[in-house]
């Protein structure tokens, strides 16, 4: 579904992670682990195609992934239903919002303004938003932030269902979700200055 080989990612021309190779297929979960500031977010953004790799390549078919950043991307002045319908329409999802509403148990909250939700409920809405995109591969940056342990368990269950249904996910997290899957610890891949700077700085090294 998504493959990358000998990937070097970085910000502002400075390599953060290097020598990364990964492959994610249907039903796979890849947990990206590592300390804060190591470059997990940069790696996810690069895989999502939001920023270019410093070298190496990401091989992914178009329209397979959806990227969820730290922030939920939820508009507090819209209701839960309106938030979900928007993303379903933007991604031209064939199933609409019903499966996601059912999966995340959002039925009773549908008419509530998103700004009035609790942190955990917001997070559920944020995940439901990924589901309504209809994309099989989810790239999630720290989805467990601000979730209590029962919500984490719920998240794990939902992810498992997503994987079982032919989906896949790459998750940057420092919690063990208790799901079978690959773990990519980025610590050994941290750039040690072995790689010359790329982009703007390359010319001045």
């Amino acid at each position, binding site marked *: 579904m998504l493959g990358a080989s000998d990937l070097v990612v970085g910000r*502002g021309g400075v390599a953060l992670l290097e020598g990364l190779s990964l492959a994610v297929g249907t039903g796979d979960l890849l947990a990206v682990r590592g300390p804060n500031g190591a470059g997990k977010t940069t790696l996810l953004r690069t895989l999502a195609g939001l920023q270019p790799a410093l070298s190496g390549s990401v091989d992914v078919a178009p329209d397979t992934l959806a990227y969820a950043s730290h922030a939920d991307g939820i508009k507090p002045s819209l209701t839960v239903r309106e938030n979900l319908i928007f993303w379903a329409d933007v991604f031209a999802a064939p199933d609409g919002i019903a499966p996601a509403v059912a999966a995340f148990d959002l039925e009773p909250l549908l008419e509530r303004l998103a700004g009035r939700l609790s942190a955990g409920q917001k997070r559920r809405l944020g995940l439901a938003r990924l589901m309504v995109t209809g994309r099989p591969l989810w790239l999630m940056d720290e989805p467990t932030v601000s979730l209590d342990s029962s919500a984490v368990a719920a998240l794990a269950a939902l992810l498992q269902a997503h994987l079982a249904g032919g989906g896949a996910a790459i998750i940057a997290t420092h919690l063990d979700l208790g799901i079978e899957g690959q773990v990519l610890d980025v610590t050994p891949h941290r750039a040690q200055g072995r790689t010359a*700077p790329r982009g703007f*700085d390359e010319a*001045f090294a």
Partner: protein
Amino acid sequence: MSIWEFANPRKFTALSLKILPTLVGLSAVLVLGGLIWGFAFTPNADKFESTVKIIYVHVPSALMAINGWLMMLVCSLIWLVRRHHVSALAARAAAPVGVVMTVIALFTGAVWGQPMWGTWWVWDPRLTSFLILFLFYLGYMALWAAIEDTETAADLTSILCLVGSVFALLSRYAVNFWNQGLHQGTSIPVATGGRTVADVYFLPLVVAMAGFFVLFVALVLARTVTLIRERRLAVLDAQEARA
């Protein structure tokens, strides 16, 4: 050997350092020579009397104000198309010099206009266009200063320079249209009244224009080398921090 070899910062710096002393000397000789010649050794004109001497500072600075922006436009295009880093830095280096030239042109124009038109400022199309050019320079420099990552800044300022050039040109024609709309039939005093004069005025003007041009080139080269060095310094510091 291709001209693009000098897109390499090292080669660019080496060449710049080699020719900078010559350029500095040449610009000093030409600027001082042209200005002293024009200031002290030209007769007063019939109509403009001694104010004719102002053209030796006004016209060259106005020339370089426009050419400065044109240089930034060309450098921005080169950066966007060929991704030569020196080009982006050269565009950045040219902006402060261009803005000084614009200020000089505006100031000397106002000083000249005071006795000629009886007022420090008229919304003459030429003057107005320069004021707008000044604003474009300010926006461009402010954007450079606001973005931390150099490569992002280079990309965004280059796009702004392209779009700004189109709108600067549009403004130029719009301002022409607008002022004629305001003063129908009245003759507008033209700031270039002294340009069609005899050789006695023209020759020192040519020297001064050449001087300002060489001075501009020397300043931009020196500033570009400075920016290249700062860039390299940042890379070395980053390497040191990682090690």
